[in-house]
Structure formats: C-alpha cells, structure tokens
C-alpha cells in the first residue's frame, strides 16, 4: 500500500496506541496535519508549544505510557526545548515530532529552519532527522521503543517536509525497529549481590530511599514486599511520592531540602541506606561531605551512569528495580527493626507542635491549610499536578498520596509553568480521575494561556492558585540569605477569577480559612473546570529547610511564633 510520509506517520502512531497528540501546526508540518484530519487521532491544539511538551509529559507521567507532542519547524521546535528538558531530567517518555524544511534546502537558513536535533542533543535520550518517507514508520517505532525502555526519556523525531509529502510503500511488518545491537551487561554481579544481602541482614538502623524509578519500573508490589520483609522505614524523594502509601506506618515522608526533620535526622543516624530508583540529587543529600556518614549504602538503579556519581556506594545493583527487589526479598533474614522505627518516631519530637496545622487560627489563610483541606476533601485520591516553588513543597508535605502516579511535578529541572499544561495532559490520560492543579501566582502566569485549551477541549480540571503576591520560594531565599532584600520577587497579578471568567471558566477568590472547604466542595461538584484564587499569607516560608549546600543535619526550623501579619490585598 502506497501512502505519503505524513499518512504513514499517522498510521504508525495509531498502531502504536496513540490517541491524543498535543501540538501546534505550522508550514513545515502541514502535510502531517492534513493527514491527521483524516485519521482517528485526536489533536489537542495548545496555545504555546511548551504547553504541548508539558501536556505530553503529564500524559506520560499519569498513564505510564508515552505522550506525543507535535510542532512545526523553527520557533515551533525551539519552543519545545523547556518541555523536553523537563521530561529528560525526570525520565519521562515523551516523543516529540517536529516538521523540518525540505531536505533540498537543509542547511541553507531557509524560512523557519533550525537545527533542532543539534539543539536538543543534550536534552533528549535520542533524536533523529527523517528525510525519506520510507524511513518514517521504522523511525517512529524506534522512537517509541527508546523513549519507554530502560531509563525512559524524551525522543525527538524531526521530519522534513518532502519526507512528509513523498509516497512510499507502507508495510508495518517490514518496518520493525532496527536499533544497533547493544552490549548486554550482566545486571547482577554475584559478589556485589551477596555483599548487599550481607548488609541488609546485619544492619541495625536501615532506611530506604525510595525514588521515581520504583514507579517507572512498575515495582510497587515488589517494593512493598521488600519493605515488609525487612520492616524498613521508607523515606521518599519528591518524585518517589506515591510509590508507597503515605498512610503506612513505615512511610516517613519526604526527605531532603524540605523534607521533614525526623526523616533527615534518621538518614543521618542510619547505618544502612537502601537507595531504590533514585539518584542522590543535591536537593536530597545536602552537603555530600556530611551526608549519612555512618551508613553503608546499597544502590538499586537501572542507569549505570548514576552509580557513584554523587555518593560512593558499597554495593551497586544495576538493573530494573522490580527485578532486583524480587531477587533480593527472599534473602532477607532480619526483619525486626522495631527499636529503630520507634527511635525515628521519637525524633519527631516537637515537630507536630511546630506544625502550622497545630497553630491557633489567626484568621489568616495559610497555603498549608489550603492543601491540607484539599487532601481531606479529596480523601487523598485526586491526581495533583503542581508547579514549582513553595506550593510544590507544601503539597509534598501536606497532601498525602497513597497511590502511584497521583503526584505529577517537575522535580529535576524545576520548570515553572509546568502545572497547568501537565494537568491537561494528565486529564487526557486519566479522564475519569479528579485532577487538581496546585500552582503559584508566578508559575501560573507563565502558561495561563492554556486556559483556552481547557475550554476548547471542554475538559474538567480544578485549578488552585496559591497566591501570595510573591515569587515565594525566591522571596524565602531572599529572607533567609539576602537579608530580606526582596529584589524582583513582589509580583503583580491579574484578578485570576475575572481572568478565568474571560476564558469562560468559573473563578473564585478565597481569603479566609472558613471559605476553603465549602469552595473546594462546590468546585468538586461542578462538571466543569473551576479556578480558585487562594489569597494566602504573603511572607510564609517552607519549613524545615536545609540551605543549599548545607548539611542535612543543619535544618532551619519553623520559628515558634510564625504568624506574621502581612496578608493584605496586593
């Protein structure tokens, strides 16, 4: 059967199980759009190509499948860069398809020509230029294979306009992926494995550091069995949240820069760290010279390049988290760590008293209150998509996730503007799930044009803007480390509720704590998107905090009387 390259692309995507494509048309990708119109694929028109990549990313993270973003050449492609880098840093399987000028004029600085494969080389797992229609099907199949195998990541396929227009024989069977033969490394060095087992069975104060890799591997069951076999307390990275139920007594919560004090102190006192699918990011370790000095370390990780990168380990088990855990669990002989777990509970000490939830109601609205109420009202079952900053950390602290893939957030790159488009993608992946955007007033203004996408697609998500009139996290650093010189952090915003109305979306503004729950309830009852502008305390900070580069033991704690009185109309 003879088809054009553009038709082959659409047919291949359909056969690979794609339903939605997030994209934006333009000259060099027009043949594909023409073919899209004749296919069963649903195209979601975004308002900026960055939004398309974040939507594909949100789709991938919520579903575990592959998200697809599409753009034209030149500016369409360069607008994708931030979203691709976001997906790369968080190992998210996204396939980006870009149009390119005709192969005859490649390299001639033609209109809207840009070397997008050159630009995205360091921020993609792989990228490729297709100049012939007969290469389209095989290349797309290879892109899908690469994106979601091993450690997942984004793949960009740049297709020249003449390759889209030319005709070629379409034969699915004959266009199977033909990737270069890779060396198969033995994943389990027996001596290394035995050493890990010995460490597991002799540790008195073990602690698990659970990361995103557990979810990527689909290792939740194997992980739970591993935890139960050794009764190990579990600390989570930001992206690890959800891999183990928050309501389990062995789950300590998040570690690191804004982790709970007892979690960080437990890591510093531990005699064994069992790192699973995490990469010892600087936000997790703090100062490496003082990090968990009395602990031996086991690292279970699929990416060999992560071994000994930041923290030297005593046993490295390179491989898929599920396979390694399933192999390890039967060897666990020591399962009583109750004294150690009890000790960690005691480390909580005055944390509960210092917690903002325990403080008397001053009539002011705190972000922590809003997020805690949202958690209670949704019974912890909603998919929460956050942006980056203070609200992101408060979400991690006060929304307790019991299910995997229910917290979607930009961890590695820390991309402001991620939340709203990523939530749209998540909703397409999980149309029956309740999806909430938790976003700051700064990040929301970066990509709020996607409100129009929500309206055009008639989707139902809920948007909670944690509005403190500042770029809050930067303000917090200025408060702590720059003597409260608030340079470029006070932020004027539009009336978000009125803005929502202008898009045809219901908008609410909340300033008092008593209004939070009724408004959340009313928003949840609506079958349409609702935006709620929560005017929260302006100069509240996220506690505890480990300053950048400081030791994990050295945390800035919430002052005893934190109730600053600055919440006013901006």
């Amino acid at each position, binding site marked *: 059967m003879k088809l054009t390259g553009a038709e082959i692309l659409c047919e291949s995507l359909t056969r690979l199980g794609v339903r939605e494509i997030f994209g934006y048309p333009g000259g060099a990708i027009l043949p594909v759009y023409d073919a899209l119109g004749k296919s069963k694929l649903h195209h979601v028109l975004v308002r900026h190509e960055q939004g398309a990549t974040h939507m594909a990313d949100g789709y991938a993270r919520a579903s575990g499948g592959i998200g697809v973003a599409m753009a034209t050449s030149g500016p369409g492609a360069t607008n994708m860069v931030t979203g691709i880098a976001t997906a790369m840093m968080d190992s998210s399987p996204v396939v980006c398809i870009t149009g390119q000028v005709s192969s005859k004029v490649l390299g001639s600085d033609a209109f809207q020509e840009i070397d997008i494969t050159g630009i995205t*080389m360091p921020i993609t797992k792989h990228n490729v230029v297709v100049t012939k229609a007969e290469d389209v099907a095989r290349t797309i199949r290879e892109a899908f294979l690469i994106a979601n195998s091993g450690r997942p990541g984004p793949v960009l396929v740049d297709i020249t306009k003449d390759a889209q227009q030319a005709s070629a024989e379409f034969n699915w069977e004959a266009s199977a992926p033909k990737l270069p033969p890779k060396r198969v490394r033995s994943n389990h060095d027996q001596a290394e494995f035995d050493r890990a087992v010995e460490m597991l069975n002799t540790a008195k104060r073990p602690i698990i550091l659970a990361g995103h890799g557990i979810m990527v591997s689909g290792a939740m069951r194997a992980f739970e069995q591993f935890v139960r076999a050794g009764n190990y307390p579990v600390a989570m990275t930001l992206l690890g949240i959800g891999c183990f139920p928050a309501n389990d007594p062995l789950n300590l919560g998040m570690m690191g820069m804004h982790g709970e004090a007892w979690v960080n102190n437990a890591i510093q006192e531990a005699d064994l760290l069992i790192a699973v699918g995490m990469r010892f990011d600087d936000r997790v370790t703090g100062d490496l010279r003082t990090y968990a000095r009395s602990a031996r370390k086991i690292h279970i990780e699929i990416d060999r*390049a992560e071994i000994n990168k930041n923290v030297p380990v005593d046993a490295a088990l390179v491989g898929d988290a599920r396979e390694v855990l399933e192999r390890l669990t039967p060897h666990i002989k020591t399962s009583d760590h109750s004294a150690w777990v009890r000790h960690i509970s005691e480390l909580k000490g005055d944390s509960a008293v210092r917690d903002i939830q325990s403080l008397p109601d001053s009539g002011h609205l705190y972000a922590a209150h809003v997020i805690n109420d949202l958690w209670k009202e949704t019974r912890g079952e909603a998919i929460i998509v956050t942006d980056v900053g203070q609200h992101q950390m408060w979400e991690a602290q006060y929304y307790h996730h019991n299910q995997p893939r229910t917290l979607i957030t930009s961890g590695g790159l820390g991309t402001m503007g991620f939340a709203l488009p990523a939530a749209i993608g998540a909703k397409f992946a999980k149309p029956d799930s309740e999806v909430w955007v938790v976003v700051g007033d700064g990040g929301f203004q970066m990509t709020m044009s996607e409100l129009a996408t929500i309206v055009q697609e008639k989707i139902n998500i809920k948007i909670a803007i944690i509005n403190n009139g500042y770029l809050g996290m930067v303000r917090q650093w200025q408060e702590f480390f720059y003597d409260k010189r608030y340079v470029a952090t006070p932020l004027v915003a539009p009336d978000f509720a009125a803005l929502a109305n202008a898009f045809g979306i219901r908008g609410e503004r909340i300033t008092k704590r008593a209004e939070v729950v009724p408004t959340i309830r009313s928003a949840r009852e609506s079958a349409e998107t609702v935006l709620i502008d929560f005017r929260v305390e302006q100069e509240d900070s996220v506690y505890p905090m480990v300053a950048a580069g400081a030791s994990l033991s050295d945390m800035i704690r919430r002052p005893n009387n934190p109730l600053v009185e600055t919440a006013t109309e901006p």
Partner: protein
Amino acid sequence: MQTLVAYVENKPGVLNRVSSLARRLAINIDSLTVGPTQNEEIARMTIVAHTDERGAHRLEASLEKLVDVLLAENISTRALLERDLALIKVSADQQNRPHLMELIKVFRARVVDVAPESLIIEVSGTVDKIDGLLEVLRPFGVLEMARTGRISMTRGGDLLQPPPAPAESPEAVESKAK
C-alpha cells in the same frame, strides 16, 4: 589520563554525540581517533581523556547510554598496545642531513619525502617514543607536524569486540518496552 575504546554506528552525527557528551561532563579529550572496523557499519574509537577513574566510569557508562554507541569500555588498567603515528617535516640541509638520518635510524622512523630544504619523517609507536624523537628533532627546526592521536588494543586473548546482533526479534523487544 584514561583510555576508552568505543564501538559506534558508522554514520553522520555520532562523533558529535560522543564529543558533546564529554563536553557536558566537563571532561577534556586529549585525543580521539575514529576509523572503520572490519564491519563497515561499525566504527571504532579510541578516546584518551584527561580525567580520573571515576570520571572515566561516568564517561563510559554515559557513552553506552547513547543509542548509537554499541559498547564503551575503559581499558586503562589492562595490558595494552598503544600506537600513535606522526608525520614530521623538519628542515634539513646538506650539512646536517647525515646527522638527521642517524637519529631517524635510532628511532626506527623513516623518511617518506625528501626535498632540497626539508625531510618528512614518518614515525609510529608509543606517545613517549614520538615525543622523544620530536625532542631531538627540535634543534634542526620542526616546520610542520601531524599526529593521529592514540589507537589502543588490549593484548592477547583479551578481546574487545562489538556485540553481536540480538537473538531476540525486534517485535519482542518492542512489546517488552510497553
């Protein structure tokens, strides 16, 4: 200094990916040679990098993550044969020519081009040997020099071959990835 060998796809852009990776890891490359192997679809690289063992591990593991790299291995601590090739154009007049020829003989180099005012000397061997010859040629006046950079091979039965094509069918690999 660390020596790595990599087998890569013999196609455009692969060298860029490899060198760009070293740049991203802030590893300075001392020399990088590429050439085809007995299989024309596969090229072999010898990479000599200014880094320590830890850096070499990162480079090796990161290189192997590239789709077009079939295998990368740090061979620094193995028994190696290393060769570098140099063409050295040195000024030579009637008077010092015999003296020059004497030195060339000692270094087992050979003269491959003779002109009234200069000679081109071809020498191959270890980096030290070529550096040594260069040192003694310097007083005569080195006009031009081209060096290939190092190529390395592990000795004897210690084979470093590109991996064979997988036995598994591509379809099976594709479905496993889902």
